[in-house]
């Protein structure tokens, strides 16, 4: 029986050596890093990375090794849930920045909820994300039930759209924002000439044909840039001149790369303003560019702020715990108590986990180049 006892001793020794890992605190980012939406997901990771790297010296002084733990959820709900299950079982993970897609965040946060793991979303706009009132789920961007109506008001009141054709991508995000847009536009007196879903990524010929038949003066797509770019290109090819409009997931330089010339004139609402809208983000933008050799896009400043919310909450929870490692529950509670001046403005949360006031931007791509110009900013509190 000598050999087994040696193995046991070795195992014990190993567990004691891994004990030192106890001082590692990880903040995970969850977003698509591969696949068609990686273009937007990448910036969430990089934004959070800037925040974590900035806080590492402070955590070292507190005796902790703060690390970023980037995860790829492939913009797919089942992969997102698998990632969530891995994260909750890793005791060093004390906070999640993510996800990017509402359709992924909603099921994944069900997993986090059972383990009281805090999730701060930089980008999930579907109302359901916070409407479930989970104590661990917060977000620092706006909501689709405000974003959709804000877009509809702009379309009907300022663009004077009378006939509107709506397409949605059949995800929680796309369908949600498209329905919010439709209901508001209808209430404002516009005629909704079509409302249809599609899972196509490249062949939109049937939708383009329907648009041609209905002759709308505005086409709204509740969907993401990889579909939007192709749809608008095929519309323009067939000579349809209706205004093309959509939600915040159009906000990527890839949209322009896909649609090319057809992207000119596109209008989108977004919960993430162009970086030049934030005076406080100047340093962030120049540091970002110096480190990653590209300008921060879309949700990068929001991911930076979301990570900083988690970091501030961690620091508060560590202090409250007399310098020892806090529990996950304590981090969740601390997040709701955070008030700080982020680079995207003042951050504080209501009881549901929504930001007290969020800004909504109407952005227009005047020419076929990114980024567009914010032509209107609307501040709004979340609906209760």
């Amino acid at each position, binding site marked *: 029986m000598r050999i087994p006892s040696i193995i046991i001793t070795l195992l014990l020794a190993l567990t004691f050596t891994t004990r030192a890992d106890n001082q590692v605190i990880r903040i995970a980012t969850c977003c698509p890093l591969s696949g*068609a939406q990686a273009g937007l997901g990448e910036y969430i990771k990089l934004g959070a990375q800037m925040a974590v790297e900035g806080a590492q010296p402070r955590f070292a002084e507190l005796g902790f090794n703060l690390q970023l733990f980037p995860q790829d959820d492939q913009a797919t709900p089942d992969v997102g849930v698998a990632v969530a299950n891995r994260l909750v079982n890793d005791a060093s993970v004390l906070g999640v920045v993510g996800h990017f897609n509402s359709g992924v965040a909603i099921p994944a946060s069900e997993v986090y909820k059972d383990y009281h793991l805090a999730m701060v979303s930089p980008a999930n706009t579907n109302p359901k994300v916070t409407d479930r009132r989970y104590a661990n789920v917060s977000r620092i961007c706006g909501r689709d039930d405000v974003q959709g109506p804000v877009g509809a008001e702009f379309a009907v009141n300022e663009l004077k759209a009378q006939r509107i054709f709506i397409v949605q991508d059949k995800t929680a995000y796309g369908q949600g924002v498209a329905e919010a847009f439709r209901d508001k536009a209808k209430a404002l007196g516009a005629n909704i000439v079509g*409302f249809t879903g599609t899972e196509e*990524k*490249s062949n939109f010929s*049937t939708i383009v044909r329907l648009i041609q038949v209905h002759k709308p003066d505005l086409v709204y797509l509740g969907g993401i840039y*990889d579909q939007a770019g*192709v749809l608008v290109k*095929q519309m323009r090819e067939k000579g349809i001149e209706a205004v093309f409009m959509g939600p915040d997931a159009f906000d990527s330089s890839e949209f322009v790369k896909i649609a090319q010339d057809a992207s000119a004139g596109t209008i989108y609402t977004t919960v993430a303003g162009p970086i030049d809208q934030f005076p406080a983000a100047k340093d962030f933008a120049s540091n970002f560019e110096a480190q990653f050799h590209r300008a921060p896009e879309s949700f990068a400043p929001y991911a930076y702020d979301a990570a900083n919310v988690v970091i501030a909450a961690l620091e508060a929870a560590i202090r409250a715990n007399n310098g020892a490692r806090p529990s996950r529950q304590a981090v969740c509670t601390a997040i709701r108590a955070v008030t700080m001046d982020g680079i995207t403005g003042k951050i504080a949360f209501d009881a549901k986990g929504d930001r007290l006031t969020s800004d909504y931007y109407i952005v227009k791509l005047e020419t076929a180049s990114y980024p567009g110009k914010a032509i209107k900013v609307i501040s709004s509190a979340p609906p209760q």
Partner: protein
Amino acid sequence: MSGDVLIQILPSVLLEGLLLGFVYAMIALGYTMVYGVLGLINFAHSEVFMIGAVTGAEVYRHLLPHVGNPYLLLAISITTAAAVSGGTAMAIERLAYRPLRRRGNTNRLVPLITAIGISFFLQDLVRLIEGMWHNEFFVNYPSTPALERTFQITEMLSIQMKAIIVITVSLAMLVGLQLLVTRTRLGKAMRAVAQDAHTASLMGINPDQIISRTFLIGGALGGVAGVLFGVLYTKVDPFVGFLPGIRAFTAAVLGGIGSIPGAMLGGILLGQLETSAGVYLPLLTDGNIGTEYKDIFGFLILVLFLLFRPQGILGRKEGEKL
């Protein structure tokens, strides 16, 4: 919606259905030819199609500044894509299916699972290469005015130059394949191997060589289909093969798997069904049934066929093999 509009748009809907149908038909041929000689459903074929689409796009956009004539450029893209896709299909057969066959593995599930595995492998391989090369996963077919020139035939019917090209190239390919299979020694050998590989080998035919060429031809057709698909719909990415692949497979089954004219017929039928359903369902139901339900019809017809005529439109009942 007034009935007038429904009729007015019919010709253009039929035209779009035909374009899509030709693409499906060319992909379906790859499924059906391989099934004919091996009795194997080569699910990796959708990735052979994707590789053709991506290769074509890369050639197209890299040569665009150097080759002035868009038709010549397209011809180069199509040829390169056909060669790369055909080569890929042959390599898949040589590296994956042939070793399995050599082991005398009679379980049909083994090559099927292998095919699905290869499919994932190829998707991620292309994604990796594209990601390292351009730091993005999609490739655009750049628009050229010559290909996008539109001929207005009636008020509601117009045809783009690229549509004419798609129809011409597909027809040439389909007729060429039919001639190859029915009129040449290679075609005769392919039919012989499909009928009975063992007996064919007694007649001096090398079945492995014929199988390899079948993969080459089917793969090349898939590659051409990929370029045509890309030219029509402008954007391709490593995951673009999935939907057309599954629909083309349906088309092959619909037409009678193993039958070459059946695959062509099935492809065109499915393209028509999908396009017409996608346009007319929302129009006839006043938008209550959206265009997203267009696939229901294609697959409903497939289920009906499987129930009442499992051999498909032109397929033959599989006899008992001794």
